[in-house]
């Protein structure tokens, strides 16, 4: 006890003269040397600057997929002010991520510097099971370091913001009028990170562990607000493993999108563009098994085989999961009453 107390006091005493204070100190010591400022192509509302996260000792940098990386010359400035050129290793248009590699800075007129071997970085441990399951929990404090509005110049340290992880949820968003292609899990961050230059910022918890990276600026379809979020570490790892050729499996999103439903009961649901709507029946195909079961237009589907159905997408997912040939039990709200129907499976005509 006494020794611990002494250590604690010494610890506090030793922190006094440093630049980083208190509870976030450890996180910041880890965080700041591991992010780089990126400069590349910009046009119109697309910033020509951004942030990247260093993920290997030999210069791999993780950032977002954006116009920036289409520049003929991508430059990266490390925390010590060293200027690197960077090249694109891998683009992921679905997750909207990109992997860059820093090249050694030239030391003289035409000379290449020594190979990069010992850069500070986050050890992603993507292949280890422990890394995949390491998840931050809602409520956890995080600190975010990046270069929003490029206020940090040259060797100046990145801008640091703090907040908690608000939630882990699926992304449903768009950029101006275009649907954002990534629909997987994200971490909602209780800090304003939806700013130019911030995408690619590293998000670390109180232990200095990288829990995510700020994603591209989007507007949520659910709230119509600028959405502050990070791509979770496990999603970053999926991309890194694909980039290193260590995985042959297709991502979950690709799998489900290509799989056709096994059984079509003949129900068409109300759908309007990107809007997420409760599963209201718009039309029932004549002669279909749903019609025989008594499903009617304007019915609201509550459950399919006992599972609550929130929207048309979940209805599709549920249909794909059905066992072919088995009847489907559907609970429907019709007017003020709740109706249960059993839709008999049939051979597709």
């Amino acid at each position, binding site marked *: *006890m006494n020794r*611990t*107390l002494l250590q*604690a*006091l010494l610890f*506090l005493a030793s922190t006094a003269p440093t630049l980083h*204070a*208190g*509870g976030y100190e*450890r996180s910041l010591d*880890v965080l700041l040397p*591991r992010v780089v400022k990126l400069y590349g192509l910009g046009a119109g509302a697309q910033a020509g600057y951004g942030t990247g996260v260093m993920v290997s*000792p030999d210069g791999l940098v993780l950032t977002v997929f954006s116009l920036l990386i289409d520049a003929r010359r991508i430059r990266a400035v490390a925390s010590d002010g060293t200027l690197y050129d960077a090249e694109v290793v891998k683009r992921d248009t679905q997750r909207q991520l990109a992997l860059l590699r820093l090249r050694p800075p030239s030391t003289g007129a035409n000379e290449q510097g020594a190979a990069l071997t*010992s*850069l*500070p*970085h*986050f*050890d992603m441990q993507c292949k280890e099971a422990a890394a995949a399951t390491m998840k931050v*929990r*809602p*409520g*956890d*404090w995080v600190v975010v370091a990046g270069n929003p509005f490029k206020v940090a110049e040259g060797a100046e340290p990145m801008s640091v913001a703090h*907040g*908690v*992880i*608000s*939630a*882990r*949820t*699926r992304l*449903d968003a768009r950029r101006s009028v275009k649907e954002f292609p990534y629909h997987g899990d994200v971490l*909602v961050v*209780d800090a*304003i990170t939806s700013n130019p230059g911030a995408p690619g910022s590293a998000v*670390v918890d*109180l*232990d*200095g*562990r*990288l829990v995510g990276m700020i994603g591209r600026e989007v507007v*949520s*379809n*659910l*709230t*119509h*607000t*600028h959405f502050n979020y990070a791509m979770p570490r496990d999603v970053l790892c999926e991309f890194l493993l694909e980039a290193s050729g260590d995985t042959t499996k297709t991502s979950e999103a690709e799998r489900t999108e290509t799989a056709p439903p096994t059984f079509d009961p003949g129900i068409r649901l*109300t759908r309007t563009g990107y*809007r*997420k*709507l*409760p599963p*209201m029946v718009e039309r029932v195909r004549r002669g279909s098994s749903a019609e025989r079961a008594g499903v009617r237009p304007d019915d*609201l589907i*509550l459950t399919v085989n006992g599972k*609550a159905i929130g929207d048309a997408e979940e209805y599709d997912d549920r249909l794909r999961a059905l066992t072919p040939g088995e009847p489907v039990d559907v609970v429907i*709200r019709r007017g*003020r009453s709740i109706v249960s129907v059993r839709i008999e499976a049939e051979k597709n005509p």
Partner: protein
Amino acid sequence: MTQATKPRSREATKGTARQVAWLVVSLMTTAPVFVRGDDPAVLREMQDRFRRVAVELRPSLVRIETVGGTQPTRSVAPSAPEDTGENGEGLPKPKRTQSPFRDDVGSPFVLADGPTTGVVYSADGYIVTSSFNFAREPALITVTLSDGRRLAADLVARDQVRKIALLKVDATNLPAPHWADVSDIRVGQTTVALGLGFGADEPSIHVGIISALNRMRGNAVQTDAKLSPANYGGPLSDLHGRVLGICVPMAQRPGELAGVEMYDSGVGFALPRNRVDRIVADLMTGRSFHRGWLGMVVDPRAVNAVVISKVADPSPMKNAGLQAGDAIVAVDGRPVNHFGHLMQALYMLPAGESVIVQIKRGEAEFSATVTLARSDELGPLPALEEPFDPADPLPEPPPEENP
């Protein structure tokens, strides 16, 4: 090479470490540099609390989904029946779209389609939420309880001024949350806002502090927690899971969407229990609240004075015997010497509430009690008595929003 995560046997020494940390904290309380959260143990304690608040309040949260309805237009036309008669030449009369008394939604914010949040108000199926969530006038409302049951909900009534709505579902034994005593709320205390608007089953957590009390004419507490459509209608809680208020969009002007443009800004509002209880008691009787109007147009040429130029007939002002040329000196004892003052005196008052208006007519001063009316209760404005003199200095059109 260098490593982000160093495995440490933290768990074993955690308890002791925390004790020590608290001891050190208490030793250091006199040091001027120490602020809340400056110690990792304090931060860890807080994040555990945030989670506990979310867990404790989750049973009282409901997800609200709506079908149908449309984005409200910037100006809502009066719902009074229109005169469709014809004039002498057999041409249709111009429609009454020029009425200055229109219930403006107050913000160009475009509503989204996601779920919103509500809080169980009573065990017998009443749900309190923000009226913001029904600005679309949806045809169907469903409520998903924390146990997964999804029920059709009736919109009992709503208050478009204080932004509170009351839903009713057929359910019993719903867990209402504990509320904090309004008199216990202090500026600076930590707040946690919870919402289901981002689509996850668990509420999103947004933290902040109480920024001010008695905002919006004493109706709301202010917080710097990030409030947005993701948590409007949800609870603002203290660190013990006691509800401090219901999160609502608000601004110092009328309109059901007014204040939404300040989402996530660090300026957010919540209605505390005493206000919610009073409003809900009225809503339970089926009474809805709309923007309150005086039914008059002010003279834009008047400087440092609010002078009535026209009074609608019928209207609250007409009923109170007030007329063109009268100057409004004060409302409810609050001095009024330009149009903005008048708006500020009225924006939190729904139709049906009364105000005492201090009037100056010539040399005489007197006061009148005026009961505010809905826009659709107002009659037409009198036509101009004399044609416009082009030399008249009236460069500006009348203000868009007339009380």
